C-alpha cells in the first residue's frame, strides 16, 4: 500500500440528514438528498438492470414508493452503448425516470460473467467474446461510462474476487489495488458536482484487511461508502462480522451501502449493524418464477394449493395488487395470480410490483421503528412472523450478529 495516500478532496452532490439512531443496536434512520429527490434510509433499491424494471412502467415503480433504483453499467455499456447514452443525454432520459439512479462499476459482472478475464494493475483484461481480441477495461473506462449514464451515485471500479477465495495474498492484493483504482476513478470522474462517487471497501473476510481498507478509503473522502465483495456465498456469520467491523470505522455522516444484499432477513440484520443501503435482484427475479414475498417468508403461487385461494397475496398488504377494490387497489387474488403466473407477462409484472412494494414497505417500517426507538422489537416481530414464533428455528448467525450489537433476539 502506498505510504502516502495523498487524499484528494472531492465535491459531493448529496447530503445526509440523520433523524434517529437506535439506542440499542447500530441502526440509523436518515434521509439522503440526491440530485433527483430525497431517499429515506435505510432503503432497498430494486435493480433495473437494462434501464427497465422487468416489464413495469416507471409509474408502476413510482407507485411502490421507489426513489432510487439501479442500472448496471456493464449492461448499458453493451446496450445501448456510450454513443447512444451521450446522444440521448444519459440514462434518466433514456428510460424516462426522473428519480435517482445508482450504477455499479461493471467490474463484478465482468469478472463473474466473462471467462478468461484476468485482472492486472491496468485494469480487467479479457478476450472479446466475438472475435477473441484481447481487450482492457480500466477504471477510467468505467467512470467514463458512468459519467455518460449520468447516474446520481456511481461506483468505483474495484478488484473483485470471491470472498470465499482461499488465496490470502490475492485478497490483500485486490484490496490494495482497489484503493489505487479509487484514486484513478477520482481523477477520471468528470462530474463530481452532480454524480456521487462511492468507494468500495474490499478485503474479503479478513477483518484486518477490511480495517486497513476502511482507513485508506475514508481518507479519500468520497461522498458515500460501499462495502463490497459480500453476497458471494460466504457464511452469514462472516458477512455480519465484516459489516459490523466496517460500519464501526466509517464516518457517521456518510451513507453506507452493502452491495448485492439481499434477503429480507439479511437486510433487517445488516440495518442493525449500521448499514443504510441495499440492492438485490432476488425480489424481482423470484417474482418471475411465481414467488411472492410475504411476512411469513415466500410463497410460490404456481403451487396448485393456491388455485382456489381467493384471498389477496398477503392480507393487509397495501400494494396496488393486494389492496382491495374499494380502497383503490386491484383486489387480485392468489387464485388469479396462480392462473397467470409464468403464463402471461402480466403475471410477472404484478408479482414484481408486489415484491418491490413489500421490500420498500419493510424498509419504511424498519425506519419508522428506528425513529421511534423500537427497532429491537421490530426485529423480534419480523423473525417471529417468519418462523411462526418458533425460536428454535431462528438462524444462529442472526442471533449472534444481533447479540454483537447489544440485542438478544431470543428475548420476549
Amino acid at each position, binding site marked *: 500500500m502506498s505510504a502516502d495516500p495523498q487524499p484528494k478532496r472531492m465535491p459531493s452532490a448529496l447530503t445526509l440528514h440523520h433523524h434517529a439512531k437506535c439506542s440499542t443496536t447500530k441502526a440509523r434512520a436518515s434521509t439522503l438528498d440526491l440530485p433527483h429527490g430525497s431517499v429515506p434510509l435505510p432503503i432497498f433499491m430494486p435493480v433495473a438492470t437494462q434501464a427497465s424494471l422487468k416489464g413495469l412502467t416507471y409509474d408502476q415503480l413510482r407507485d411502490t414508493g421507489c426513489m432510487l433504483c439501479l442500472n448496471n453499467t456493464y449492461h448499458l455499456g453493451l446496450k445501448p452503448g456510450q454513443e447512444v447514452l451521450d446522444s440521448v443525454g444519459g440514462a434518466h432520459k433514456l428510460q424516462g425516470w426522473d428519480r435517482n439512479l445508482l450504477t455499479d462499476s461493471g467490474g463484478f459482472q465482468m469478472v463473474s460473467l466473462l471467462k478468461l478475464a484476468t485482472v492486472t494493475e491496468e485494469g480487467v483484461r479479457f478476450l472479446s*467474446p466475438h472475435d477473441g481480441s484481447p481487450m482492457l477495461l480500466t477504471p477510467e473506462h468505467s467512470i467514463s461510462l458512468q459519467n455518460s449514464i449520468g447516474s446520481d451515485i456511481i461506483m468505483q471500479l474495484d478488484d473483485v474476487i470471491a470472498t470465499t477465495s482461499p488465496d490470502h495474498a490475492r485478497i490483500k492484493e485486490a484490496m490494495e489495488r482497489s484503493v489505487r483504482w479509487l484514486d484513478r476513478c477520482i481523477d477520471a470522474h468528470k462530474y463530481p458536482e452532480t454524480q456521487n462517487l462511492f468507494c468500495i471497501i474490499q478485503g474479503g473476510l479478513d477483518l484486518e484487511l477490511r480495517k486497513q481498507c476502511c482507513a485508506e478509503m475514508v481518507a479519500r473522502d468520497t461522498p458515500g461508502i460501499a462495502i463490497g465483495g459480500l453476497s458471494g456465498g460466504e457464511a452469514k456469520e462472516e458477512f455480519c462480522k465484516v459489516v459490523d467491523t466496517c460500519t464501526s470505522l466509517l464516518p457517521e455522516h456518510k451513507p453506507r451501502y452493502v452491495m448485492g444484499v439481499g434477503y429480507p432477513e439479511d437486510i433487517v440484520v445488516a440495518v442493525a449493524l449500521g448499514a443504510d443501503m441495499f440492492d438485490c435482484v432476488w425480489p424481482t427475479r423470484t417474482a418471475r418464477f411465481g414467488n411472492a414475498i410475504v411476512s411469513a417468508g415466500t410463497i410460490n403461487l404456481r403451487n396448485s394449493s393456491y388455485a382456489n385461494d381467493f384471498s389477496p397475496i398477503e392480507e393487509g398488504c397495501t400494494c396496488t395488487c393486494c389492496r382491495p377494490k374499494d380502497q383503490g387497489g386491484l383486489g387480485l387474488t392468489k387464485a388469479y395470480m396462480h392462473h397467470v403466473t409464468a403464463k402471461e407477462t402480466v403475471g410477472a409484472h404484478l408479482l414484481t410490483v408486489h415484491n418491490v412494494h413489500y421490500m420498500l414497505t419493510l424498509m419504511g417500517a424498519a425506519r419508522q421503528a428506528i425513529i421511534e426507538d423500537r427497532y429491537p422489537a421490530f426485529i423480534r416481530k419480523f423473525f417471529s412472523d417468519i418462523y411462526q414464533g418458533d425460536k428454535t428455528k431462528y438462524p444462529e448467525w442472526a442471533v449472534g450478529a444481533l447479540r454483537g450489537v447489544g440485542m438478544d433476539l431470543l428475548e420476549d
Partner: protein
Amino acid sequence: MTTAMESSQFQSEKMTFSVLSSSAPVMAPRVGKLALAGRKTLSTPHYIPLTSRGTVPHIAHDMLRKETALNSLYIGLEDFITKKSPSPVYNVPVSEDESPLRRFICASDDMPLILAPRRYPAIPCPPNNTDTSIAILTSVGFRQLPAHQYLDSVRSLKPDIAIGLADIVYGREPGVKRRAKMVDRTHAFTQDALERLYGKAVPAEQKASAAYFAPVLPLDNAQQSLYLDDLQDELKSRISGLALYESASLSQIPESLGALPRLLLSQPGSPHDLLREVSLGGDLMTLPFVGECSDAGIALDFTFPAPSDATVSASEPRALGIDLWSADNAKDVSALSEGCECYACRKHHRAYFNHLLNAKEMAAWALLQMHNYHVMDLFFAGVRDSIQRGTFEEDMRSFTRVYASELPQRTGEGPRLRGYQLQAGPHKRGPRVYGRLDDVSQKFAESQSSIATPDTDASGLEHHGFAQKA
C-alpha cells in the same frame, strides 16, 4: 354516400343497441351505441380487445385502468378450463348478480365482458368437434367442451355478452360434407342454447343474464339458409347480436336482423380490411394484428381520415407502422407518432423502444400495446365521425391512396410463445432447446439472459466506450 339519419333500435332487458345513422339496414356503414346494463357504453364501430387468460397481453391491470381507454374484453372460456374439475373460475365466492368471471380476472365493474367458448384467434385442435361438444385447447392440452357445459358457464359466469357455440373448422377448408355438418350442428347448438338459457321452461331466476350473439358461419348464403331463416323467425326474439367469422357474411344478414349488432371474428390483416368491414356494416371488430405488431416491435402509425396534408405518392405510400427494431431509431428521441398522447409517447421515445427490444425487456411490449391500442381508439373515433359526416367512402378511398396496403414486415423477435398462444400462420414456435424440465430450463434461461454477452466485436466494444483493445 347519403347522410340519412334513420335510426333503428334493438332492445332487450340488459342490452340496447341503437343505430344512430345508416343509409340501409345492411351492407352500409353505420354508427351506433351499444349499452349494457351497468357497463360502459360502446360507441360503434369499435373494437373488442382480445385477452389471454383474462389479461390484455402485457398490460397490467393498473396500467389498463389508468392509462388506456380499453372499454370491453373478449374472453375465451378455454383459457379457464383446468384438469381438475370444477375449474377455479366456477368457485369464486361472489354476491348475487356479481359475475364470478369478472371477479376471477379482477376486471373493473363497468367493463363489458364478452365470453366465447374459444380464445381468438382460436388455435386448430386435432380432435374433431362432435354433435354435442367442440374441441378446445386449454393450457393443459386438448379436450372437448360439451355444449351443456358452455351453457352452464354462460349462466353461472354471467358475462355481459355470450357468443354462441359454433361448429367451426380451423386451419383448413372444410369439404362439402363437413360444411353441411357445420350448419346442422351450429343450428342445433343455437336452438338448444336459446331454449336452455332463455326458454319458456326456464324459471325466471335461472334465465341467463347474458345477451346471446348467434354465430353466422363462414359459408355462403345458400349453404346456411335454413339456419339463417330460423334465426330470423323462430329464434329472433332470443338473440341480441350476431357473431360473424368472415367479412363476407356481412352481405348475408337478412334485413329483418339488421337492427342487431354485428361482431366480427374475421382476422383482419390491416386497417384497410377493417374499413371494408365497416363499409359493409360491421359494428364490433376483433384485431389480432394489434397484439402481433406489439410483439414484433412495431408501433402503428396511421390516422383516419388520412392526414389531409399527406403527400400522396403511389410509389412510396405511407407506412402503417414503424419497426422499432430498426437501428434508425437508436438515437431518435422523438415520440412513436408525432403529437401522440398515449402513455408510451408521453413518457418515452423511439430510442428507448429500440433499446428495450434489443435488450429483450418486457416493458417494450407493454408500452407498445398501450400505444397501438391508442392508435386504434383514434382510428375508430375517426371512422365514427366520418360516417356521421357522411364522408366515409371518400375518406376510405383517400386512406387507401395514402397508406401502404400492408403492415410492415416483422423483423425482430417477440416474446416467448406458450403452447396455448401458438397459432397457425406467421408465428412459428422457436426451436425447442430444453427438455421437459420447464422450471429448471426457465431458471437457466433467466440466468443466461442476465449474462449479457456482447454481441459486437472488439472494435464495437471500443466504439461503445466499454473497453479498449489491448
